[in-house]
């Protein structure tokens, strides 16, 4: 990646797209906009951006449909989910489809730019809301038999360090603040978050699979 990240905006609200485009200004290069699933797939496949800012809800389906269609074609494109949604299942479904993070639409411009850079660099971006969702999803100890035999039981639970990091994110700490609080480097924080993301995407935990299944049914 050289220079500023190239970004595609996918959101069905024109007002929101133009607002984000104006806010991002020179920080990133907005190379295209789309307002629905199919136009988004066509656009992303042709312009091959670094990052796609993807609305969780689109008129023609969910954001995960876009990710699932793009992944086999251009795996190098990274997705950052963006939503006003309150429903964890929507967000988790998009993350499990392959998005590298989730931020809410009320995020400040500075934080959004930062999140885009982070995703473009291959890191994961967890907003305080997403951290809460994840803690909740991994918090309850699953009832026996509700979890499919996993090929890797490690995936089904968070380490105490990862939990710690997520808690601090949920309290609104930045990665730098977390690093200072836990006496670790920012790189280590990032690797913890990436590891959580991997577990989130691959775990066969009951809640996660159920959330994903419900989304696919609707």
């Amino acid at each position, binding site marked *: 990646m050289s220079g500023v990240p190239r970004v595609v905006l996918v959101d069905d609200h024109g007002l929101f797209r133009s607002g984000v485009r104006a806010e991002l200004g020179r920080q990133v290069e907005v190379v295209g906009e789309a307002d629905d699933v199919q136009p988004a797939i066509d656009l992303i496949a042709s312009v091959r951006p670094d990052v796609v800012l993807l609305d969780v809800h689109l008129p023609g389906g969910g954001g995960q449909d876009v990710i699932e269609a793009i992944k086999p074609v251009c795996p190098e494109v990274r997705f950052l989910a963006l*939503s*006003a*949604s*309150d*429903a*964890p*299942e929507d967000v988790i479904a998009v993350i499990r489809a392959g998005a590298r993070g989730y931020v*809410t*639409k*009320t995020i400040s411009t500075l934080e959004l730019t930062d999140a885009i850079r982070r995703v473009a660099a291959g890191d994961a971006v967890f*907003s*305080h*809301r997403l*951290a*809460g*969702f994840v*803690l*909740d999803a991994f*918090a*309850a*100890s*699953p*009832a026996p038999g*509700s979890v499919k035999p996993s090929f890797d039981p490690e995936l089904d639970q968070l380490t105490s360090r990862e939990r710690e990091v997520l*808690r601090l994110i*949920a*309290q*609104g700490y930045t990665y730098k603040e977390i690093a200072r609080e836990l006496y670790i480097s920012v790189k280590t924080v990032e690797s913890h978050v990436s590891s959580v993301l991997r577990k989130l995407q691959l775990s066969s935990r*009951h*809640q996660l699979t*159920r959330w994903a299944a419900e989304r696919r049914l609707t």
Partner: protein
Amino acid sequence: MMGSVEDPARWQRGPDPWGHWHRGPFWLRNRGNGGPLRRDPSERLAGGVAAGVAAWKGINVTTVRIVFVLIALISGGFCVPFYVVGWLLIPAAGEDTSIGSRARSDAAGIALAAGLASLLAFVLFVGGVFNDGWIASWAWPQTVTVAGLALIWRNASPDEQATLRRLVEPLGAAGPSRPGRPGRRSVIRLTIAGLLVLGGASWLARGRESMALLRPLGGVVLVIAGIVLLLGPWWLRIARDLVLERQAKVRAEERADISARVHDSVLQTLALIQRRADDPQKVVWLARMQERELRSWLFEGRAPGEPESETTFAGGVRQIQQDVEARYGVPVEAVMVGDCELNENLNALLAAAREATVNAAKWSGASVISLFAEVEPDSVSLVVRDRGQGFDPSAVPKDRKGLAESVHGRMARRGGTADVVSADGEGTKVTLKMPRPATATAAASAPGGRPPEGRP
């Protein structure tokens, strides 16, 4: 048709229900108005035809009514349709067109009227086969009545429709009750009908020696089957059209409800925001208030302003968030992990958290306050954090009650802990932790507990 219907308009002109200002014999009310015949809705019991005739000819309206009823009784019901036709064709006073002329362009109404009339005719035909014909002779003209009433129903002005509804109400109570609510009455009705059918069928089956009697019955059944085959689809279509129409009405009402709600809250707030455009903090505050209100209406089905009493911990945290935002205008970001029922310990925890949050809103100067609540099997923790100016906890005089009593004291009395970390210019973090009794742990560790609450 002439039943006693409360019509407030009748009583407004004076205490004398018999008409007014009558000079001479009571049946002469006034001189005729000399104008064209018009129905008089202000004096009506049903369609205002009698009142119209009375006004037209200058006769007392009650006299006209008695004459109408007598004619209806003497003619054996044959003249009732004329009343309905009169209702249809005579324009109401103050209107140019009659209901009939409006009904001409109402294709669905005409189809409905024809359908109802043919249905009644069919029922009468079947009834006539078994009966001596007395009911039939009385009831046949009512096919016209029914068709006429259907047209009036669909094309009359709203207040006339209301009158009609009141007239039909007693019939409706005997008929099928509202769908989805099988009342005791309809159960009784269905039971009686079922018993009758069963009894009739068993009686027919037992009387084997009267097989000869069954032959014409077979013919009747064939005729009925034929008619049902011929007209059945048409009746079905009419019924379906009616259902569709009703659904459309329900949708329109829902739409009106939503637009009223949007107008009351969202549009008002947007107007306020435009007027306060020069005060960013106020704008943010307004937007957040509106967002929260709209979300609780959309996703939790709670109408704005509806009193709520929280019974769960997450609900209590949300309450703190709302109250502090509303009172101090500082955004509060709340993230909740897990949930459980409230108890006294948790109420104390919430009270301490509220105090800490209010302190942060009042003194820290931070632009946003973070609330993080986590329910774990053996404890409940809550972190209130801001990035404001902070303070030196050791420098706080011992007699300052806020932190010592409201936060530390509350927690300590219930076996919990409060930890305050703050430094000048580095913000404040208050960590509250309350152990949970062992009995309460089962509920919290159930898989797939409540999804986390909070706001984006």
